[in-house]
């Protein structure tokens, strides 16, 4: 058991590119911390530095208050599950599970006993004499897990452990990992690029982009109060709509220019976001989750006209891409280009392209970001 602490951790490659830049993060003893971000954001680098597979450029990594920067992986007592599992192809499942214990020169009796127990926990008993080649993806994944947990490491490191599985297995094993982690209460760093996986798994989630830590918090915090426009766009499926907008001070209150409409911001919202006061008379980004936008039957001064561009029917929900008078922000794209306002509706809806709708945006559902993309709170 151990706590991990990253202090000003930096990884610079020889090319000068930053893998990780001045990252500060604490992972508590027994905690499951999910590192999430788009591919190439540095999350795997962070994991590999923790394992000792990559050199730290500057800053420090502490495991249980001990700086481990210069300790080789063999002596860190960490266990790692690799994306492709890295099972030893020439060894049986038994051989794979036993290998870490054999490296610790444990007595044969004890090794045998532990292998038997782990195999039981992970349902691997009938597979013990098979080689990795003869296993299914899910079985291989379990062997990789077994090899990690068999040696009572201080820390688990998991590098996209589910990305080679099909969608159904992924959900299943995700639950299993969460259960196992709680049971064993071992400090865990879990890397994924899949924000849904991060949200369902993490006790806390650290969002990383371009080597910089963007936000750390519980899934709920990150979803409801994103620290910046990147997190807002990255978390959620689809991500938050970001609308270019401005604040005006008028009649002693603050008003929000939303397309053609100018809406007064009620006092309860101003109390929630005291920062808005200091950003009046400025251009801001307004964020709204696609499910928080509603269709309206009647045109009024509370609604905005919109024209259907495309619809994606998912069965239980429908995502509608709308052309509106709102200026969609394109500078904080986490996933692809977006030029339309997305609306997420429950159930199945049939719209034809070009159809005119009226939408209503509730002022209480908004998030605000300054022109640099930082959240206004």
């Amino acid at each position, binding site marked *: 058991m151990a706590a991990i602490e990253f202090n000003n951790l930096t990884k610079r490659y020889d090319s000068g590119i930053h893998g990780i830049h001045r990252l500060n993060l604490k992972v508590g003893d027994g905690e499951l911390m999910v590192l999430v971000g788009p591919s190439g954001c540095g999350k795997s680098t962070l994991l590999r530095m923790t394992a*000792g*597979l*990559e*050199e*730290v*450029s*500057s800053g420090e990594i502490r495991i249980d208050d001990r700086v481990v*920067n*210069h*300790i*080789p992986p063999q002596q860190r007592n960490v266990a790692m599950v690799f994306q492709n599992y890295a099972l030893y192809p020439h060894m049986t499942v038994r051989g794979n599970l036993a290998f870490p214990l054999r490296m610790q020169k444990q007595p044969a009796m004890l090794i045998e006993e532990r292998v038997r127990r782990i195999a039981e926990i992970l349902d691997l008993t009938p597979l013990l004499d098979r080689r990795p080649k003869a296993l299914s993806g899910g079985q291989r994944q379990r062997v990789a897990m077994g090899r990690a947990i068999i040696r009572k490491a201080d820390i688990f490191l998991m590098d996209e452990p589910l990305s080679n599985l099909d969608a159904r297995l992924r959900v299943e094993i995700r639950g299993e990992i969460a259960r196992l982690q709680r049971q064993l209460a071992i400090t865990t760093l879990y890397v994924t690029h899949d924000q849904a996986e991060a949200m369902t798994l993490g006790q806390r989630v650290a969002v990383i982009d371009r080597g910089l830590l963007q936000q750390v918090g519980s899934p709920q915090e990150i979803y409801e109060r994103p620290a910046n426009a990147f997190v807002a766009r990255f978390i959620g499926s689809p991500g938050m709509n970001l609308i270019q907008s401005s604040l005006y001070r008028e009649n002693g209150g603050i008003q929000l220019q939303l397309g053609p409409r100018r809406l007064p911001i009620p006092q309860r919202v101003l109390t929630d976001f005291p920062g808005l006061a200091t950003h009046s008379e400025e251009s801001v980004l307004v964020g709204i989750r696609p499910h928080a936008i509603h269709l309206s039957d009647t045109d009024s001064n509370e609604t905005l006209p919109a024209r259907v561009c495309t619809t994606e029917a998912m069965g239980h929900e429908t995502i509608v891409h709308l052309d509106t008078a709102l200026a969609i922000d394109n500078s904080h794209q986490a996933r692809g280009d977006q030029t339309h306002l997305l609306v997420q509706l429950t159930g199945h809806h049939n719209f034809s392209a070009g159809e005119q709708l009226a939408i209503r945006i509730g002022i209480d559902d908004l998030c605000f970001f300054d022109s640099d993309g930082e959240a206004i709170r």
Partner: protein
Amino acid sequence: MSRRRRLNDQTAPALLLAMPALLGLLLFILLPFATALVLAFTDLRLGSPLAVNLVGLDQFLYLFNDPDFMRALLNNLLFAAVAVPLQTLLALALALLLNRGLPGTLAFRTLFFMPVVFPMSLVAVIWSLIYAPGPNGMMNAFLQWASFGLWEAKDFLRDPLLAMPAIMLLSIWQGVGFQMVILLAGLQGIPQTLYEAAALDGAGRWRQLLHITLPQLRNPLIFVILVTTILAFRLFDQVQIMTRGGPENATTTVIYETVQAAFARQQVALASAMTVVFFLLVLAITLLQRRFTHHQREVA
């Protein structure tokens, strides 16, 4: 950055692992080769009471005015110019025939490759029997049969005109399987979809060969040509066993002359100069190959 040991610096174990091989390469390749380079510019001769002098390019000038050595060079060039294309074409033909995947292919491949595992000294001895003079020699008898009796029995290995072709023939027989196997592997690496696409585009068998097979086979082809050309310049075993360079220097080679100079005449410096010339030839061929090889990008 602190002066502390780098986390992943493995200099100590790496040196331990690499040392035996590096030491071997240093002692038995680099050092002798460097010695040859130096000796080639001296007049060292074993057993000579005279002091050793640096003589600059004298040994090379001597070599290029030495009719025996020039003949050796010419013989090597001739061997390369004739045997290499013939052997490559034959290997390509065999590979193409085997690549059709007909039943029995494996047996044929085994047979064609078999001579490759034969030591050249043994091949030379067997073919000495085949080239036996008189109408009883197998080659003579075969040629007589094939020419409807027009061929007059020859003593191949003692005929200045026939000795070299005779040696070429057995060298091709021994080596073609090596090239064939490499070209066959190359052929099997060509994606079938390319042929399917070409067939859809209306390309017939010949056009497929010309526009797909040969371009796709470019690197293996260049490789086998390189290896065979270098082998042509290393020619020694057959010559030493079958003809001793004769008759009338018709089969002498650079390496044969080098061994003669080093071994029989103790001319260390001259032999070293020959070694250097030989090395430069090999280097030139290798550089040519590098130039012609397309470097495919590694796919991670």
